[in-house]
């Protein structure tokens, strides 16, 4: 399964959300996008964006002071 890593370090919300959204646009269902963030708000905002746009969060964690959110694209929701 393809997983794209996007560097959202130093970006403040909603920029990490925008980066995830733009990365997902055009990706086939099942692909994953991993956002590496330093704004803790990303742990809430990326899952919220994913919920309302019908994608699936497979991981949201804090690692070495960074916040990692992995979103899986759900085909029918891509827009």
């Amino acid at each position, binding site marked *: 399964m393809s997983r794209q890593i996007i560097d959202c370090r*130093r970006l403040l919300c909603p920029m990490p959300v*925008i980066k995830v959204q733009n990365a997902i646009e055009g990706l086939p269902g099942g692909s994953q996008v991993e956002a590496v963030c330093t704004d803790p*708000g990303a742990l*809430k*905002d990326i899952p*919220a964006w994913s919920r*309302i746009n*019908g994608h699936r969060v497979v991981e949201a964690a804090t690692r070495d002071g960074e916040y990692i959110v992995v979103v899986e694209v759900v085909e029918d929701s891509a*827009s």
Partner: protein
Amino acid sequence: MSEQRKAAALISGGLDSLLAARVMQQQGIHVEGINFYTGFCVEGHTHAIRRRDQKKDKRNNALWVAEQLGIKLHIIDIVEDYKQVLINPRYGYGANLNPCLDCKIFMVHKAYEWIQARGFDFIVTGEVIGQRPMSQRKETMPIVSDESGAHDLLLRPLCAKNLPLTRPEREGWVDREGLYDFSGRSRKPQMALAARFGIEDYAQPAGGCCFLTDEQYAVKLQDLWRARGNKEYEIDDIMLLKVGRHLRPASHYKVIIAREEGEANFMQGYRRLYPSMTTVSHGGPFALIDGDVDDPEIELIARVVARYSQGRSAEQVELSFSDKSGRSRSLKVKPMAAHEIPKEWLI
């Protein structure tokens, strides 16, 4: 069965756009939200930066509103394009540096491009006649519709009954009878409608949706423009205007001093973009220097930063200065006394 029409609603995160979108849903319209990010949006930034705010539950209001409505939300980065709006607003600024009317025209124009690209039928905003002195007046409503290019594809459900018919109404996509005639500054009609929809929890933006309406922020931005001799800015500039204490000892440089740990952490991320300074012998703030400085100026900055450290009354404070490449050197200085820092330096 008639085709389901699709509307893009401008979602700011406030109550008005929430209600406007809700009214459309009630009429069977498929609604998706658009939220624009200019770089000046208040949304969560200070919470993310300032440690003392971090305990408060931070939420992105636009996302939250979309979730309440059960609609998709598309957040659009307009940081680059927005510069032209802010630098050169045709209709000027509001009370501070907020170019609200130009901003509205621009956002509706962007939304118009968006609906054309996606096959949506019309645009919805939460505007109310007379709600805001600059951008939401009877005279400005047609200006926004026409100059954005959206013309009669722009529908304001909360005050549509006070405005000429739009295409969605003419074509019967929406029922004008189910729209509203709100006007004036009062928030009561909106609150009553919210109650009718069972919406209890919503954001109450004080001045507006962005930092440009904030007086302190506008003063700092104006200072930046004056010092540079033009109104250009980069996203890093406008982010840093939100943090720290800003002092400008001379026109060609300023010092940004963190006020607490959260700000210091955030500012550390800029160490490779700006020269920086921090205290070594005493607990003290982290500082960034915006501008090119020579040795005597570095010493002066060290004395200022020492003034804001725990060594402010010591004979000598040791600091470390680092340039953008990360090379650092140590300095030992006598902290400035409070009265030695001219008031004019503080931005």
